[in-house]
């Protein structure tokens, strides 16, 4: 499978007045395969939008490599094959939906009004395409944004918070459209906070925190290792003691036991142990790991690790040892977003 996006040690550092600097993206290594829906997650200020801007060539990287569709990010030829839907986009409100799509089509040199109308029909704006954008709801604005992003039949779409702030129906509509893009062989790169959406539609995800990658992989792999809850009755003290020794017990009261089994081997072993000890297994319920759990775990672990690192550095300084050096600033000025 070829890579639609690849970043190698990508760094973005902003230099502020007075000499201070802020590394917003820190040695980021991403691999997005062609034809997949890739979720790019992270808390606010993690560096998601900055990364997208670097991949689009809107801002330059401080160091590292960013390749999009096999070429260097920012190559104008690549812009003919990609598209971008920003977070909370504003469009020229005096225009109608159709005029807006015609405008964006003209930037590609496309003069095909029928295609523009077809795209608006595809995003369910057939009856509203001649209304001014100022009268559009949030969901309609997002749909017209998707229509404009499809005008060049892109191979790769960058969608920044495509379902942010939408009502449940608009959510489902946008989600279904994104799934259709995958069926058409397009690669979709989604930056989102809507973890339930990401979990439903993405093939692979990456989680960044404070500019650094903390997890990346297939959702099925990352969410593997979900637990199974086993409930049994008539459990003897001897059996409960042996399970307690293995730290498997969630609760044990009046001979009723609830256990946690991380994988199937453990599960079979536990059920055998319970039944051999005369207990009766009442229920076996798989508790699947959710993306939300993974996200919180990954971000919290990273924060803890960084907190420890900071602590060590502070101790080091008090001992007169060298503090962590600020990454060299090669380019860039301004604020991260």
């Amino acid at each position, binding site marked *: 499978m070829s890579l639609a996006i690849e970043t190698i040690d990508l760094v973005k550092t902003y230099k502020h007045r007075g000499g201070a600097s802020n590394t917003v993206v820190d040695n980021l290594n991403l691999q997005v395969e062609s034809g997949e829906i890739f979720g790019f997650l992270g808390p606010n200020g993690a560096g998601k939008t900055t990364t997208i*801007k670097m991949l*689009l060539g*809107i*801002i*330059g990287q401080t160091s590292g490599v960013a390749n999009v569709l096999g070429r260097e990010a920012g190559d*104008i*030829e690549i*812009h*003919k094959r*990609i*598209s*971008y*839907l*920003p*977070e*909370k*986009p*504003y*469009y*020229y409100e*005096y*225009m109608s939906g159709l005029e807006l799509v015609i*405008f*964006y089509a*003209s*930037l*590609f*040199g496309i003069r095909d009004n029928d295609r523009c109308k077809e795209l608006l029909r595809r995003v369910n704006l057939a009856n509203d395409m001649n209304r001014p954008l100022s009268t559009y709801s949030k969901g309609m604005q997002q749909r017209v*944004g998707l229509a*404009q*992003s499809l005008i*060049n039949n892109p191979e790769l779409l*960058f969608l920044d918070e495509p379902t942010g702030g939408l009502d449940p129906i608009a959510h489902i509509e946008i989600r279904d459209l994104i799934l259709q893009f995958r069926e058409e062989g397009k690669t979709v790169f989604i930056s989102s906070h809507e973890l339930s959406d990401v979990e439903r539609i993405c093939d692979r995800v990456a989680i960044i925190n404070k500019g650094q990658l903390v997890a990346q992989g297939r959702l099925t792999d990352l969410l593997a290792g979900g637990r199974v809850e086993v409930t049994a009755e008539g459990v003897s003290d001897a059996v409960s003691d042996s399970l307690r020794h293995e730290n498997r017990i969630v609760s044990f009261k009046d001979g009723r036991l609830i256990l946690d089994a991380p994988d199937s081997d453990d599960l079979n072993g536990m059920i055998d142990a319970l039944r051999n000890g005369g207990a009766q297994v009442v229920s076996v319920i798989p508790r699947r790991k959710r993306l939300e759990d993974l996200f919180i775990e990954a971000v919290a672990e990273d924060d803890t690790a960084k907190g420890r690192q900071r602590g060590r550095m502070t101790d080091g300084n008090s001992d007169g040892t060298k503090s962590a050096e600020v990454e060299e600033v090669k380019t*860039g*000025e*301004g604020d991260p977003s």
Partner: protein
Amino acid sequence: MNAVLSIARTTLGEAIRRRVLLVILLIALLLLVIAPGMNGLTARQSQTVLLSLILGVLQLSSAVIAIVLTVYMIPNEVERRTIYTILSKPVLRWQFLLGKYLGAVSALGLMIMLMTGTMIAVFAAFQGPNVETLASLARVAMMYFVQMCLLAAVAIFFSTFVQPVVNFFLSGGVYLVGTVFGSLFATIAESQQLPQLVRLAAQLVMLIVPNFGQYNVQNSVINSGAQIVGEGIYYTNLAVYGIVYISILLLGAMLIFDRREV
């Protein structure tokens, strides 16, 4: 070129709907309409005062429109994120900037045309349809338009690296220096009584700041005795000066904008 024209068309569409510009335009039109009722002088004096008044209104309102129109143009695109959807398409930054400038100049042209039409109609209604004077008024308005195109280029240049409010005062200041204080700086530059350093500084200001004052050709209309020698060549030179200066400013703006992180 497709992209440049599309961006220019969109900029024009947006500019002519901006309320603040429409308010300034409306006030200007109102002043032009009521100007004839604002003096009670003799017929000869009346024509001179009326011409000064209406041309003054035209110039001042055009300058305010030019600055207000252009100082917010690029920052607004960044703030509203429209620039990202445009620059993620196969559009180069210089194309974006040129498109914005051409759109602004088109909007300026439309507004100046509307004010000029009103001015000519008002003048004809109160002073009679003197074809020669009316043609001269149109010529003056045309020079104001070139002047405003230059001012818009100055504001676009500054908008690539300063905030809108700073740009408002900076562009306004440059316009004032190039219009009202131009002759003052010329006098300082030529005065032998002043220290060499002061004269050099005045010369530097005159070299950098565009000479907006030379586009004020209203004297040839207001004072019936005044005439421009070699009118055709003079106007051609003004146009060439404007085009060269605008090109330099836009080139500078493009170079800065190309390196700027938006």
